[in-house]
């Protein structure tokens, strides 16, 4: 007993972040929201081979699909002029798939649920996580949200064991053919009203597996999605930011908690 108490003092108090009041600073190399420097007059020659997943599209202006992007360092090499960089902004979650497509710097971050649904879920949201063919990277970050650093439960959000106890699903992975049935059954088991959150490049578009013989290209088309959280895997704070926006607990641009 004394051992436990002494140890408690030795460990000290250096645990939970005061997020969202303060956003911790990310290391310099952290790859957050991509930034397209689209202002240059001469269009930049694009090296397609550096973008095997087709995240960048060149129309009149370059666009980048955050849902297809694995946020990998090599993607920067699509253009020698450095048209693509990553910022340290961790906020990426959006409500509509088309909002994942980036033109410049602005992202249309996720909007809150409608008033009625928010009334139901606002103070207590129970989610069931379904891993549908993910590499487990995204799952590890979802799990990390529950540790003492991020401490998800202080926002009234919890992961539960049964879909019948849940208000919605959080899904990772491209949805393998072998998980399709299990995913649909789990979805059906969640009582109405329900929300669906797709976490990670795989769940949004198939990620590195897109077009594969044994997978679907993400959750869309199988069940309806309410929130897309891009990344590979998204940082725990990116997921948390998405959840808080969905619940209307963060104002659109700033991190004001309400």
């Amino acid at each position, binding site marked *: 007993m004394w051992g436990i108490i002494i*140890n408690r003092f030795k*460990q000290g108090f250096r645990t939970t972040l005061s997020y969202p009041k303060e956003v911790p600073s*990310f290391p310099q190399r952290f790859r957050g929201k991509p930034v397209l420097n689209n202002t240059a007059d001469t269009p930049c020659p694009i090296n397609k081979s550096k973008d*095997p997943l087709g995240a960048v599209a060149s129309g009149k202006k370059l666009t980048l699909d955050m849902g297809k992007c694995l*946020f990998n360092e090599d993607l920067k090499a699509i253009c020698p002029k450095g048209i693509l960089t990553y910022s340290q902004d961790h906020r990426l979650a959006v409500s509509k798939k088309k909002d994942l497509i980036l033109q410049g710097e602005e992202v249309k971050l996720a909007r809150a649920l409608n008033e009625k649904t928010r009334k139901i879920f606002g103070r207590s949201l129970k989610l069931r996580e379904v891993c549908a063919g993910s590499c487990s990277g995204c*799952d590890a970050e979802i799990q990390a949200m529950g540790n003492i650093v991020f401490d998800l439960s202080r926002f009234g959000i919890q992961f539960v064991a049964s879909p019948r106890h849940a208000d919605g699903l959080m899904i990772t992975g491209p949805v393998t053919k072998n998980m399709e049935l299990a995913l649909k059954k789990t979805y059906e088991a969640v009582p109405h009203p329900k929300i669906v959150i797709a976490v990670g490049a795989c769940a949004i578009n198939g990620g*590195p*597996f897109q077009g594969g013989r044994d997978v679907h290209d993400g959750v869309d088309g199988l069940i309806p999605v309410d929130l897309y959280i891009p990344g*590979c895997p998204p940082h725990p704070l990116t997921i948390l930011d998405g959840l808080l926006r969905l619940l209307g607990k963060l104002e659109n641009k700033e991190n004001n908690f309400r």
Partner: protein
Amino acid sequence: MKQHELYVRNGQNWEWDRIPILEEDSFRQEILRECSHGARLVNLFAYPEGSGNIRIFSMLGRDHEGKLRLLSMRIPIKKGCFQSLTPELPQAHLFEREIAEQFAITPVGHPWLKPVRYHQNYCDAPDLWPAVSSRSIPGVYPFYRVDGEEVHEVAVGPVHAGIIEPGHFRFQCHGEEILNLEIQLGYQHRGIEKMMENVSMERSVLLAESIAGDTVIGHAMAYCHLIESLSDCEISPRAEAIRAIALELERLSNHIGDLGALSTDIGFLPPAAYFGRLRGEFLNLLMELSGNRYGRSLCRVGGVLFDLDQEMIKDFQKRLLVARKDLKEICDLFFTKSSVLSRLEGTGIVSNKIAKELGLVGPTARASSCGLDVRTDYAFGLYRFHHIPISTVLSADVYARALMRRLESQRSIEFILEILNQIPDGDLQIKSAALKPKHMALSMVEGWRGEIVHVAITDAHSRITRYKMKDPSFNNWMGLSMAVRGAQISDFPLCNKSFNLSYAGHDL
């Protein structure tokens, strides 16, 4: 006449025609003979050769000599079968099931011939299990059943209660006692092996990083090492050092995360919370280095994308010293409590004999006193110059597997500190040449779960025509089944945590 023999080493490549082809019978005899003399079946896989033949390769690891013997045999597709090794060599069981599923050839006499991952075969032949390949699993899967009074069956999964990957567990129990556990995976099957043959190099490295999300560095290193070998590309000592540091950071974050999970499972929450925080420290170090908490984008063919500058080295040293002290204090708290010990000791034993028979690898094997570790046995990269002492434990229970994680974490911290002190010079990334035609190469890495093996074969146009990968989980899942045999069903979660195997790595 004596057959000419081919021995290969980790990181080597060799011409395709040098691989000896044996008659089916002598192929089998040689494997059994080598294994009875202490060799280990590191790999057994098939390759459609064209011209109506399937080639089967076997890699037999002589761990103490640091080399592997390579054998092969040819089977005409029309014949469609070969004599199973499994009755005499249990470690072949999953390899043979995999071959049967991938190439629709039957290992005759296999005692438990079932699909592994439930997918269609790779060679447009009729599937061996036409009824199941088109359906979702477990579909019509016949599980092993025990009949009798008071025998009951417990089915768990694929979707589990926690935030974990999907898989189906079928227990046959008598009261609380587990008589048999059959684990059916395949839900995570994404078809990575096959995709590796069809995508560009820019994409295949991204796939390698996504085999198992907690082993990003391990698999990316194995992949890069393999491609570098096939193109005779020698990366700089500095890049080797940075890769090794990342590999050990990955080991640290996972081992410490596992210790936290074990404490949660036995309901001892203070160390669970501290271990959880400490795990984050190591992930954050990886993020400082590579911009991603799991080290994505660090390893690329020809070297690494990120350097460690002087300032970072100082910062890493400082943080590692603090972490070392924390680790000691938290472990002292965890490993000395009698309530913890009484829960861990004697639970989930996998004897040394069974571990060897099943071909277990990694810390799981070392916890059953099998002294194998790729970092010493088949040293690669920086490990050729800096040795990391390996630890083994005798007791072979959950306690042993927990203790392994503590010992290996300590060693990894020491190792990183040592390298940070004298990090060699060199280019971060060098350009690699084209792949050699008609070659085969082998790359092995000791990931945090154990032995990762990647093998590739190129054709006359230097294209990769077969990419075979093996995550340590492939070897070890059967170990978990054996660990809980005869145990109480309530011990299962604890045993499972002590293995913490990858579903994605198994299912590919």
